[in-house]
Structure formats: structure tokens, C-alpha cells
């Protein structure tokens, strides 16, 4: 309630006896609701909504997910269907993005390729999240010698050139993986995706969690000084409980942000590897392999490179901008 002043410059308020009546039951309840409503998530959502760039990125991401996962069902073609007589077509009404030299519709291939890229992005980010957060929180909580050894291991992994390791690993694991795939139902749902993608997940699980581990360790070192960690120890909580119930939930903001920013980097790495010919196996498409295939005829058919490249750029830009927005919303202290 805003109080009226007598005149504009006066310090006296216009008051009436009604202003001094005790609050009614409903007014009291309103007040209670007001205090209850300011939770961490609602606060973050409010800040996120004010950030226009982040909201646009969020909409772009949602549209892209629809494009990648719902899109192919509306297409008359499938990603590996070769339409005789439609080879090497330019973008037209029949094939919006044109076709390749085998007569495959590029639109549906870009959709499926985006799907693969998104799956790899999210899957790798989750692998990184699980390994990195557990490793980092264990190192941070135990401290001392354990921490020392664990962080030196992280630094060794950090300092190895990753492209070299990826290429070597791909060569080493490709054969055994292929055999495992051929032999049967070892991978369940992953069976469809092909050994290349599993290899990428393995590479991510081996190499890319170190950044997350460092960030989480830093947070845990800070959080473990908090009194409520002492309180939980005094109650008899073991380390597992401290990590899962107290430490990780309290760095949830950082976890979400780092995971979110991991997605575009994983998508980019996958595109890059597919471009080098190490990613998904044909006829499955990913954005990187589409771009790589298009390179053969780039002078005659530049649109074949344009569409997958555009898709990669849009996904990565949207995820990065949304990740930045999330960071500002979840952790206002980190904002520069």
C-alpha cells in the first residue's frame, strides 16, 4: 500500500483511522504467500526472463529440438532413402534443401543429423556431469594427499593433446566396438546409433570431464567450510551422504551452467570428428559428416555445405548464449 502525501514536497502523510486497523485474515495470508514465493528457482527464472537474448536462444533451442525430433516424421522421405531421378537437385519445392548425388533428401538428412548431434551433445554433457562432479567433489572433500594425487591426474589428462588421443582411441576402439555391436544386444538402445557414437561417448568419458572436475572441486572446497557440513558430520553423515545430499545440491547452479556450456562444445567436437571421418558411420548422418560429404562438390553445390554448417552454427550459438544467460540467472555473483 502506498501512502499519499499532503503536498508533493511535504513530509507529512495523509493518514486516516482505517490505516491503523489490524490486518484481516486474508491480508495476513497474502503476506505469508509473498515470503514463501521467493525460492531459488523462481528467482532464477525471473532473472532469466528479463534476459532477452537468453529467452530467444531458449526458443531457438526448442524449435531446433522439434525440427530434429519431430521434423523427420512429417517428411515423405527417410534419411537413407535414395530417390531415383532426383540426384543432385537444387533446393526446390519437392526437396527444400535439395538432394545429394545419391538422390537423398537433404532436409531430412539435416534433421536426422541435428538429432544425432543433439543426442551426442546432451549425452556427452551428462557423462561429463556425472564423472566430473563425482571426481571433483571427492577430491575436494577428502583433501590432502588424495586431492593432490587426483588433481595431478586431472592435469595430466588436461595437458595431453586431445585430438591426438581421440584419433588414436578411435582407431584402437573401433574394431572391438564393431565386434561387440555385431555380436548382439550389448548396447540396447545405442545399437541404432552405431559404434562411432559410442566411441565419441567413451572419448568424452575419458577426456573431457576434467574441466568439470576442477570447477566442482573449487566449489566444494568453498562449501565444505560451511557450518552445515560440520553439522552433518556431527550427526554422523558419511562422505557419500555429504557429497550427494549437501555438496552437490549446493553447487547445482554451477553444475547446470557447466553442463549447458558443455553441450555446444560436444556438438562441435562431434562435427569436427565426423568431418575428419571418425564419427558416425554411413548411411547415418550427423551435421559434421554432412558437411564433410558436401566438401567434394562444394563448387557446384555450395548449398549442401551451407545447410548443415548453418545448423551447426545456430545450435552452438543458441546453446552458448542460453548457457551465458543461465549463468547470470543462477549465479548473479559470476556476472562480470
Amino acid at each position, binding site marked *: 500500500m502506498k501512502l499519499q502525501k499532503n503536498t508533493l514536497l511535504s513530509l507529512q502523510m495523509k493518514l486516516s483511522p482505517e490505516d491503523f486497523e489490524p490486518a484481516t485474515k486474508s491480508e495476513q495470508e497474502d503476506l505469508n504467500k509473498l515470503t514463501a514465493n521467493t525460492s531459488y528457482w523462481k528467482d532464477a527464472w525471473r532473472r532469466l526472463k528479463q534476459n532477452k537474448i537468453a529467452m530467444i536462444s531458449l526458443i531457438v533451442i526448442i524449435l531446433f529440438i522439434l525440427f530434429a525430433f519431430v521434423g523427420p516424421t512429417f517428411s515423405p522421405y527417410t534419411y537413407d532413402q535414395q530417390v531415383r531421378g532426383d540426384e543432385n537437385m537444387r533446393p526446390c519445392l519437392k526437396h527444400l534443401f535439395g538432394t545429394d548425388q545419391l538422390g537423398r533428401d537433404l532436409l531430412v538428412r539435416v534433421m536426422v543429423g541435428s538429432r544425432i548431434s543433439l543426442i551426442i551433445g546432451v549425452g556427452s554433457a551428462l557423462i561429463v556431469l556425472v564423472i566430473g562432479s563425482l571426481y571433483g567433489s571427492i577430491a575436494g572433500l577428502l583433501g590432502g594427499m588424495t586431492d593432490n594425487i587426483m588433481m595431478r591426474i586431472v592435469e595430466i589428462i588436461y595437458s595431453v593433446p586431445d585430438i591426438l588421443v581421440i584419433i588414436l582411441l578411435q582407431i584402437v576402439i573401433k574394431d572391438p566396438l564393431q565386434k561387440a555391436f555385431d555380436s548382439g544386444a550389448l548396447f540396447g538402445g545405442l545399437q541404432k546409433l552405431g559404434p562411432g557414437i559410442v566411441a565419441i561417448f567413451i572419448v568424452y568419458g575419458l577426456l573431457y570431464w576434467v574441466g568439470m572436475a576442477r570447477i566442482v572441486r573449487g566449489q566444494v572446497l568453498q562449501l565444505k567450510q560451511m*557450518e552445515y557440513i560440520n553439522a*552433518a558430520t556431527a*550427526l*554422523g553423515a558419511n562422505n557419500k551422504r555429504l557429497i550427494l*545430499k*549437501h555438496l552437490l545440491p*549446493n553447487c547445482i547452479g554451477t553444475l547446470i551452467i557447466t553442463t549447458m556450456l558443455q553441450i555446444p562444445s560436444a556438438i562441435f567436437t562431434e562435427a569436427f570428428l565426423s568431418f575428419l571421418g571418425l564419427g558416425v558411420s554411413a548411411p547415418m548422418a550427423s551435421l559434421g559428416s554432412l558437411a564433410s560429404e558436401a566438401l567434394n562438390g562444394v563448387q557446384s553445390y555450395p548449398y549442401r555445405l551451407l545447410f548443415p554448417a548453418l545448423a551447426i552454427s545456430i545450435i552452438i550459438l543458441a546453446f552458448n548464449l542460453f548457457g551465458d544467460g543461465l549463468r547470470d540467472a543462477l549465479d548473479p555473483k559470476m556476472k562480470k
Partner: protein
Amino acid sequence: MGNQNNENLIEIKNLKKYFPVKSGFKTSYVKAVDDVSLYIKKGETLGLVGESGCGKTTLGRTILRLHEPSSGQILYNGTDITKANMHPFRRKMQIIFQDPYASLDPRMTVGDIVGEPLDIHKMFQNNKDRQEKIYSLLETVGLNREHANRFPHEFSGGQRQRIGIARALAVDPEFIVCDEPVSALDVSIQAQIVNMLEDLQEEKGFTYLFIAHDLSIVKHISDRIGVMYLGHLVELAESRELYKNPMHPYTQTLLSAIPIADPKTSRSKKRIILEGDIPSPLNPPSGCPFRTRCPYATEQCAKERPELKEYEAGHFAACHNIK
């Protein structure tokens, strides 16, 4: 004040806690608790006073093994717990923290915070009994059962301290370290919390180690009082005896600093003002820790550290100059 008998619940022998401080290759030690011996009888309240940084909090936490003791012995009910697996003892010994804002996990609801000890010690098999226990704990400390679904940040300091107390009570402990439980609270709330602690003690027979730097509250709640200075216990006596007849010069100074509500007596009272600051615990003075600020310091004080001696029945002090 609780029922007293002569059984010692807690006994500490020559307890030391040194924190290493590394600077370059040299490691020096902060002697936070240095050679403290005391006992706490079942059902009594032992007050512990001293200025900031004198090691009271460290002592309380070392007793609970939240810090590992550097040397010395802690006996609980006659059992040596210095090296023991603490898990079973966590149900017997609890702590109430100073800062009600930092001691509750901001991501847990009040129900989960109070219920955590129940889960850790697997005290309830079914969810309904567990929930009932949480409600009854909240009601014990003067909160409503509706509060169980809220988060700590929705509460005031006093209410948060009550939540912290409910959490400590959840395991039905025998011994509670109250680590300055009221110093972060408003004066009007302090009385409520202190009275509640006293009522709980009467009802359940708790033994308290009550750490504070507010002398009037300690006087009110304690049966016996220990005075700490620079990691050492310098005086230990029955509450009334200590206030009537302080032996150690440091205790005399502390007591002279208590404000008196009546201006006439206040004016006539002589306040002892110490010179200088408390020495660094990294580099404590030789001999008696208090000698650098003590008006009665002699040469002997610089050479030998005074032992804690019993001068009258139950009245211990560590000073060379007591006759």
C-alpha cells in the same frame, strides 16, 4: 539446573589441538587448544568463557571429534573415544551452532534437515513414524508442523536456531555442545532460547557444554564455569564461587567488564583494563600465557607454566601468584 551426581560423562585429559600453518617450507602451529584437562558431570552445565580466538569453539569441536585432536584423551562415559569409530557416539553427542544462518543447508526443507539424523541412524523404518517424529521435534522447540515443508531462508534467526536445536535433539543425545548458541541472536530472543535449553535439560536430563562470551548468560545457565585464555584453561570453579571469588587475574578482569544496570554502583565499580592485545597463538609467550598482560607478572611467570591446581574444593586455577 539439572540433577547432579558425581558421575563424569565427559573427561578430557591433556587435550591438544594444533593447526598447522604452512608458509613456504616452514610449518608452524597455531596452538588453539593447549593441554586442557577437565571433566563434565552427568546432568550439569559447564560454561566455557574467554575472548574471541581463545580456543573455546575448537575445544568444543575437538571433544566431538569434528577436529581430530593432536594429542590427549577424550573419555565419554569412561570409554576412550579419541581414536574410536565415532558413528555410534554421534547419537550420544550433539552440537548446536553459533550461526543459525550458516548451519542449516539452504537447499533442504526444514523437515529434511530435522529428519536427516533419523535417516543417517536409520531410526525409523516407515515414513509415517519418521514424519510424526519430525513433527513432534518441531513442536518440542516451539515451531509448527506446517513449517516442515519450508526452507530455512523463510525463517528468522531465532526460528532457525530452534530448527538447529530440533536437529540436535532428533537423535536423543545425552551430551550437547552449545557453541555460542545465542550470540548471533537479538537480546529478546536470547532469553527465549536459553530458557528453552534449560527446560529441555530439566525434562530430558541433558549435559551441556555451554560456550559463550556473554558472561551474564553463562552465569545464568551454568553449574560450573571454565575460563580459557590463549588455548589454556586458566580457571575452573562452581558458578557462584567463580563470581564471588575469582582467583586468576584474567578472570578478575573479565568479571570487572560485566556491565551493571544500576548507574550508581556502576560508577563506583573499578574496571580493570588490560594493556596490549591477546598474543598470537602462533607464537605464544613462554611460561604463563597471560604474563604479557598480567599486572602481577613476576620472573617465575616467564619461566614456568603454572599448572591448574585445586586451591579450594572444586575451585581450580592456574597462576603462580595465588597464595
